[in-house]
């Protein structure tokens, strides 16, 4: 009797095991912010219902720098626990060897995406990751406050500084002691590289390292850009901005305590949520331009992609998941629910998106003029380039040396890092 039940139990266990082997258990990492994780879960539930696979989300810190360090470690150790990675647009050249080539699996859909994004994820002919959404920041401004003080949306950074100062001082005098003029991402991490690259580019100061690999950062326009940013600290921006990442600046903004904010599109949807103090009170515009020769509005190209680990034990199912998350269907949901920018060109003309997220069609132009970070020319040394750059900027902003001094040292360090070639 006992033996029989034991055998029955073993058989049942074995059958379960076979079923589980057919329907894979997948794990995906995500460092999404806001309610991004809940959205991802809702999409994964659809995938689970369609395919019978089970997908677990492994949440990660939202700082892309922190994520990268962890992923690199896992991948170097050949970790098979994570099947699918959400990768930043800049990582492809550094992690190309560790991911599966998706070119064959995605050959039917790849033409739907913006060619420049697909290009950024292609390393030596290998499609390292599929684009899930793209990102380009904008200037968030308080419609109500600009109207109250009869101001227009600033077109240049000095204009922004003047407007922000005036409104901030007047609002503080009127009893709103916590109001700040402008918040952005000033912590010493990848986000500061994005913010500062926009300042430098908008002043016509190049993009740190040009596409041909030459180091261009030490120039008078770049110095002017950083000096301008330095002048904000303690006047229109709180000193604490030097430790802000995206979520900290959104926190100040969404409590109604900032006139202007530089942030990615995800903050649009959240800012219009029911718990937001600025619901319906704000709008977005392209980031201001600098002054002087070559000045223009510049937005750093961001965006996230889906890659499959080559150490995954269920590569076929994992590739299916990657294709699903990059599909037109999910990208449309993402645009509607998360205000993330699609990478599929045709979605910018989609009627539902135009009706529910009117900012997205408007973003097409911002995005088409976006500046890439120098991850392609700097290759595996990009992270160190970025770290040297953000350190120089962070030092400048916190008053540790002038912009001219810090950029001169930066140029020397980059030259040494470059050696004979990147």
């Amino acid at each position: 009797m006992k033996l029989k039940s034991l055998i029955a139990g073993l058989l049942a266990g074995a059958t379960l095991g076979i079923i589980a082997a057919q329907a894979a258990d997948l794990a995906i990492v995500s460092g999404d912010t806001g309610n991004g994780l809940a959205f991802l879960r809702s999409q994964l539930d659809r995938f689970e219902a369609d395919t019978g696979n089970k997908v677990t989300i492994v949440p990660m810190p939202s700082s892309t720098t922190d994520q990268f360090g962890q992923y690199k470690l896992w991948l170097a150790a050949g970790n098979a626990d994570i099947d699918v990675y959400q990768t930043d647009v800049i990582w492809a050249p550094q992690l190309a060897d560790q991911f599966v080539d998706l070119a064959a699996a995605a050959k039917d859909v790849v033409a739907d995406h913006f060619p420049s994004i697909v290009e950024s994820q292609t390393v030596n002919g290998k499609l390292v990751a599929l684009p899930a959404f793209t990102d380009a920041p904008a200037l968030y401004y308080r419609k109500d406050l600009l109207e109250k003080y009869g101001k227009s949306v600033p077109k240049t950074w000095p204009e922004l500084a003047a407007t922000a100062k005036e409104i901030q001082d007047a609002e503080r005098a009127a009893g709103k002691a916590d109001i700040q003029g402008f918040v952005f991402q000033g912590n010493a991490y990848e986000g500061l590289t994005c913010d500062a690259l926009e300042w430098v580019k908008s002043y016509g100061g190049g993009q740190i390292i040009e596409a041909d690999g030459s180091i261009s950062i030490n120039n008078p326009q770049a110095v002017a850009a950083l000096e301008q940013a330095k002048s904000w600290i303690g006047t229109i921006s709180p000193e604490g901005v030097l430790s802000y990442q995206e979520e900290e600046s959104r926190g100040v903004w969404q409590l109604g305590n900032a006139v202007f904010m530089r942030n990615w599109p995800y903050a649009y949807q959240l800012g219009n949520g029911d718990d937001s103090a600025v619901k319906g009170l704000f709008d977005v515009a392209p980031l201001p331009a600098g002054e002087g020769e070559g000045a223009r509005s510049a937005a750093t190209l961001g965006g996230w992609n889906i890659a499959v680990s080559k150490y995954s034990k269920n590569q076929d199912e994992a590739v299916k998941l990657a294709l699903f998350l990059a599909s037109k269907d999910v990208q449309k949901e993402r645009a509607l629910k998360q205000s993330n920018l699609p990478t599929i060109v045709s979605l910018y003309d989609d009627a539902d998106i135009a009706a529910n997220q009117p900012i997205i069609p408007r973003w097409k132009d911002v995005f088409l003029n976006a500046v890439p970070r120098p991850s392609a020319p700097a290759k595996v040394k990009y992270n160190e380039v970025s770290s040297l750059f953000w350190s120089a900027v962070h030092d400048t902003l916190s008053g540790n040396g002038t912009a001219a001094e810090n950029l001169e040292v930066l140029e020397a360090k980059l030259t040494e890092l470059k050696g004979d070639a990147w």
Partner: protein
Amino acid sequence: MASEAVASAPSGVGSKKIESELMKSRVAAAMWFLLPMLAALAIVAGWPLLRTIYFSFTDTSLQNLYGGKFVGFKNYFGWTTLKSGRTLFSGLLVDPSWWNAVWNTVRFAVVSVALETVAGLIVALVLNAEFRGRGIVRAAILIPWAIPTIVSAKMWAWMLNDQFGMINDILLNLGLISTKIAWAASADTAMTAVLIVDVWKTTPFMALLILAGLQMVPRDVYEAARIDGVHPIKVFFKVTLPLIRPALMVAVIFRLLDAMRIFDLIYVLTPNSSATKTMSVISRENLFDFDKFAYGSAQSTLLFLIIAVMTALYIWIGKVRFDGGDR
């Protein structure tokens, strides 16, 4: 008599022999008991340490852990002479960011351990006195030490936050400051913020170790001092302090070792700036964030050497004994 001597002599020799044999077998048994621990230490501490030291002499990268080539001391010190005749030095020993991190670490370790020792001593003296509810207070004071560092660092990061933080709010309402201070963000106050949190967190540990020392002090010494009418402050410096010195020295060295390799608190609490980067933070950055695994290994090796030398110096100068005796 002779027979007695003869009879007693072999028995004496025999008992000695038995004793040494007993000793031998005891030592052998002890070795067997120690073996698992030694093996575990060799696997989890010895082998990684040797491997890190080995990596520091190669050009290993994280992508290719087994393909590194031996490059000698290049990661530590090297030079190239340019065509113009100018010599460029490279390597860890001439890297200003490394020495900045060393300075940050040493400064942090010395200041934090000094503050924690004084605070811990005061807390221990209080807890050593007899009062109602002493057991509960002793348990309660350990709470900061029991909270994981990441959690307490995040908690303090919110309390010290410039916009939403309650510490700024309290100070502002009390009129002690006129504008909100960005404690963790500003380069001037970041190290202070780290020190505040670290002292808050590790004072209980210090207090506990010192309290254990205080309980060993015999009561009659105090009675004698009281009968002689010695002033309490003099009693503390002439009686209590010398008697708890061994426990104090051991507690300080534990904390010093801990403080020299501080990582998590600084990593979570402050922006990644040169004002607070310590040796552990900078070597992790090179090991994993940058494509400089070998260079990071060299930093880890030097970190190990610096701590080893400091510990040796401390034990030698302080004449520390770990068996609880004094000198």
